[in-house]
């Protein structure tokens, strides 16, 4: 698998041959094994992250993709100082994250979709913002400016005086994002931030992230299983699987990189004439919602696409024909299920 490196200029996050290995206790089933394990424990070595290297520059929004258990959250935890790597090096803004220096922590934010806002839920959103101001030493004048900006960007006006407990999930996420952005972090780690949000709330969230990144040149590392989100925000993606880096490069090239197929959407001019589609490629349009009665989607090998297209144009009465990469969602699904190694 070719390895494309990220941009070299002005790196904000630098990971070099990063590794994280756990030793998980294991034992065979049964009472005897349980007793034996009391004085002689056996461990299994688990490589959560292995030899991962990449760089992120200022202002980049990078999608960090991979199936469950691929090592995404572990990498993010290493980058935010929660976990200590067992191999390699990580530098964020010139700091070694595991040292958890206050000057470093004041420049980053980690937002998890599963727990968008910290602390007692009895506090109001404004209480949380004030707490954040004191915790991150945000000057009062800067605080007011930032709150005004965030209120505008995240449509917070109606939420500021409400208790967190009374907010819906989407509102909590907006409030959580406001709290996370109050100190204007230069690096933002977003771990599945829109999980559980409805389409409208997720879109509003994406807009806010894009606006924040463009205004502040913050670096954003985003993990998400929603490809629409990744396509909306990230021009670059890093793909990780079983702890190893599989792809680092342009999002547009990912489908080309992962899938050996192209999709030909063919609309015939005359539906009364039967066509032996199997002789051109693998028909895909089993879903009648996706295709009209006179349409078929053919899956063909990438290198065969020009030849098949020519044949179709010559042999079949065509009303329309488009050639496209398979949807990223489908490509990722195949990748998650089969792997690309």
């Amino acid at each position, binding site marked *: 698998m070719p390895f494309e490196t990220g941009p070299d200029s002005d790196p904000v996050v630098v990971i070099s041959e990063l590794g994280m290995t756990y030793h998980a206790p294991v034992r065979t089933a049964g009472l005897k094994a349980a007793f034996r394990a009391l004085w002689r424990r056996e461990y299994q070595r688990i490589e959560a992250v292995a030899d991962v290297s990449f760089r992120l520059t200022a202002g980049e929004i990078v999608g960090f993709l991979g199936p469950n258990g691929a090592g995404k959250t572990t990498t993010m935890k290493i980058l935010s*100082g929660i976990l200590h790597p067992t191999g390699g090096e990580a530098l964020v803004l010139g700091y070694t994250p595991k040292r958890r220096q206050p000057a470093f922590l004041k420049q*980053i934010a980690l937002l998890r979709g599963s727990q968008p806002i910290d602390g*007692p*839920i009895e506090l109001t959103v404004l209480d949380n913002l004030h*707490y954040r101001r*004191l*915790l991150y030493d945000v000057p009062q004048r800067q605080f007011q400016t930032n709150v005004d900006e965030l209120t505008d960007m995240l449509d917070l006006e109606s939420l500021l005086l409400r208790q967190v407990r009374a907010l819906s999930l989407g509102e909590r996420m907006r409030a959580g994002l406001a709290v996370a952005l109050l100190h204007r972090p230069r690096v933002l780690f977003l771990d599945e931030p829109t999980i559980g949000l409805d389409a409208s709330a997720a879109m509003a969230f994406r807009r806010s992230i894009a606006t924040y990144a463009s205004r502040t040149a913050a670096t954003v590392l985003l993990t998400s299983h929603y490809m629409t989100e990744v396509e909306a925000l990230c021009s670059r993606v890093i793909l990780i699987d079983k702890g190893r880096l599989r792809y680092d490069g342009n999002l547009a090239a990912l489908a080309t990189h992962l899938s050996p197929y192209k999709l030909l959407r063919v609309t015939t001019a005359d539906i009364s004439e039967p066509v032996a589609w199997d002789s051109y490629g693998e028909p895909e349009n089993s879903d009648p919602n996706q295709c009209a009665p006179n349409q078929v989607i053919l899956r063909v090998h990438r290198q065969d696409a020009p030849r098949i297209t020519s044949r179709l144009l010559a042999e079949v009465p065509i009303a329309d024909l488009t050639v496209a990469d398979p949807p990223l969602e489908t490509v990722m699904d195949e990748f998650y299920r089969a792997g690309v190694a």
Partner: protein
Amino acid sequence: MIRMLRLVGLSIWRQSLSQWSWRSFLITIVIGQSVTPLLGLLVWSAALPGDSQVSTYYVALLAVQLMTASYEHHTLSNGIYDGTLARALVQPQPVVIDVIGSNLGLRIWHLIFGLPLIAIAAVVAGAQIDVYEGMLALPAVVIAGALRFVFTYLLALSALWTERAHGVVGLGETLIFLLGGTAAPLGYLPEPFRSVGQALPFWSMLGLPAEIAAGTIHGAALSQAYAVQLGWLVVLTALAAVIWRVGLRRFAAVGA
């Protein structure tokens, strides 16, 4: 240091607000904390009728119990189990600040909800706390509070190794009950149990301030008791710092 104190103050405010939302439960745990000193009061008043010192001791013990109650197995240990610790590690403040804030918030509520109980017990039992003795006991209460917090915090850190931190803290609570002066006032125990009990940290966490308030310790014995109390605070704090570092390394290695 000023920043730390501000953060602790802020944390007390946040945590106590949160705790107020489950005030009904707070009342039940205040009653739970009061049961053993009140039982001691009943039993020992029956055993030593007319001894106002023992009544005063147990009423003072009730107040100390409420002012030093510690629940780090619920705050810190549960935070380790549910991932709150990971989030706390990303914040630019020592993790212990919020644990202290939660502890002090709870103690404030314990005292507020427990005051009527203390007053009723004092009147019914005929407790006679001298103002001077009470003032003399105040530093001991503060140190006892710190000591009991550090002790419980230390045991609660076992959550970094085991899923049974509640059991570990429970064992500590039992030792405090047995050897701290609740089951029996140490002053009434024969030697060498009394001296051994006084040298252990448990009495310093609970019984000592109550004995000072009841006027059973004076002069050189009082200075010696304060020295033991401070000594244990230094030792346990140092131990907690070491265990925290070792535990954090483990947490950072496996995510706990």
